[in-house]
């Protein structure tokens, strides 16, 4: 760690209310030379510090773990923006395997395939078998539910899911919820969760303690990134309403093929890079299609997201790393 970064962390620590509950949640951005951006809430600075320094005062207090989010592998895409999505997905797996702390599982936030074809899903499954983390949890993107209303996706990834593929699970005290917002999209509309899924979600979180850290993952952003390009979910406000009581909510999305972050009270929203191709920033192009960059820059705009959880901290530290 550089001296500059240590100074920054120390300065942040002075601002903290040290009773373990920080609800102001202002965002600090720390530039980390060479490996990408570390975004963390003020309550999260000791989290990343503990992670970097190897546990610190939280050693032995309970389970700490990391997991990785990857997204938008678009297996089968072969246009100029990236003619080797297999290679870049493999590079993402290498990146995962090179992390200092092995992740305990992976989340894939959708657009696994490019055209919902069996061989495309197969390819991704085979490549991910090479990752150190053997458990992978998926949610579909709109490219995964083409033509067959999600039947191939569900047969492969939805065995313990309900409806169009939503589910939840617990890992060492954290409650993770996988949502599907790419089905039954209406003309002119945005992503959509639908009433059946929302009812399920309300029941799913009703009896959880307020101190349970929540991670929600879904393909299309659950906040309004850029509605003109469909980058938002129509009924996400209702879903987020069910999570109001919780002290720590992290929302992980994909779809937009770039990193974006927003903090709203105790909710941190984060979108991941794609492992296939980048897309333009909101409004910076005619349309949100694949963005061509010089070949030597491609891997610097693709990447993975490492998420760090330390028990008793009220936020998760989210670290984006590019493939180059």
């Amino acid at each position, binding site marked *: 760690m550089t001296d500059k970064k240590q100074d920054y962390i120390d300065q942040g620590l002075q601002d903290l209310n040290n009773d373990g509950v920080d609800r102001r949640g202002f965002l600090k951005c720390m530039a980390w030379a060479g490996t990408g951006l570390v975004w963390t809430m003020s309550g999260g600075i000791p989290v990343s510090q503990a992670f970097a320094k190897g546990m610190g005062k939280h050693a032995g207090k309970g389970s700490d773990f990391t997991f990785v989010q990857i997204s938008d592998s678009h297996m089968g895409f072969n*246009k*100029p*923006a990236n003619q080797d999505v297999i290679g870049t997905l493999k590079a993402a797996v290498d990146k995962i395997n090179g992390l200092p702390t092995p992740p305990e599982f992976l989340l894939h936030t959708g657009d696994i395939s*490019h*055209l*919902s074809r069996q061989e495309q899903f197969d390819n991704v499954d085979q490549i991910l078998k090479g990752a150190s983390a053997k458990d992978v949890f998926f949610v579909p993107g*709109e*490219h995964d539910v*083409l*033509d067959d209303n999600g039947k191939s996706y569900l047969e492969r990834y939805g065995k313990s899911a309900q409806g169009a593929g939503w589910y939840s699970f617990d890992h060492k005290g954290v409650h993770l919820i996988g949502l599907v917002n790419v089905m039954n*999209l*209406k*003309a*002119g*509309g*945005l992503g959509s969760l639908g009433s059946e899924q929302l009812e399920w979600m309300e029941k799913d979180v009703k009896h959880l303690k307020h101190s349970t850290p929540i991670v929600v993952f879904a393909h299309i952003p659950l906040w309004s990134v850029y509605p*003109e*390009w*469909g980058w938002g979910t129509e009924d996400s406000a209702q879903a987020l309403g069910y999570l109001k009581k919780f002290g720590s909510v992290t929302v992980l999305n994909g779809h937009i093929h770039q990193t974006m972050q927003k903090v709203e009270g105790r909710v941190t929203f984060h979108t991941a890079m794609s492992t296939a191709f980048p897309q333009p920033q909101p409004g910076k192009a*005619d*349309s*949100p*299609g*694949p963005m061509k960059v010089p070949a030597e820059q491609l891997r610097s705009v693709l990447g993975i997201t490492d998420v760090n959880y330390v028990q008793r901290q009220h936020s998760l530290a989210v670290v984006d790393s590019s493939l180059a």
Partner: protein
Amino acid sequence: MTKKNIWVAALAMPVLVALLLMAGSPSVMADQPSAAGTDVKIDNFSFGPQTITVGVGTTVTWTNRDDIPHTVVSTDGVFKSKVRDTDEKFSYTFTKAGTYPYFCSVHPKMTGTVVVR
């Protein structure tokens, strides 16, 4: 011819010529659909032209020129394409007059209309 007649003829001729030319050019006649207007190009996350007007019995063909797959789906359940990747086409023959709004079910902000007269 008298001077007056010459003037009338001079004025009438271009009008007559214009009318004859117009009759021969279907695209100017408002109630006659254009043969060229049966193709819709999909590019840059949009349908072009966004609204087309065709006659009953016309087959409209959508061609995807974008580098991303799209679909063509009627909002009223009248027609629905399979996913169309780059250079793939979808055609539908409109046998009944009416207005047919449609969209891309993968990128629902993309909308278009076929008006059938």
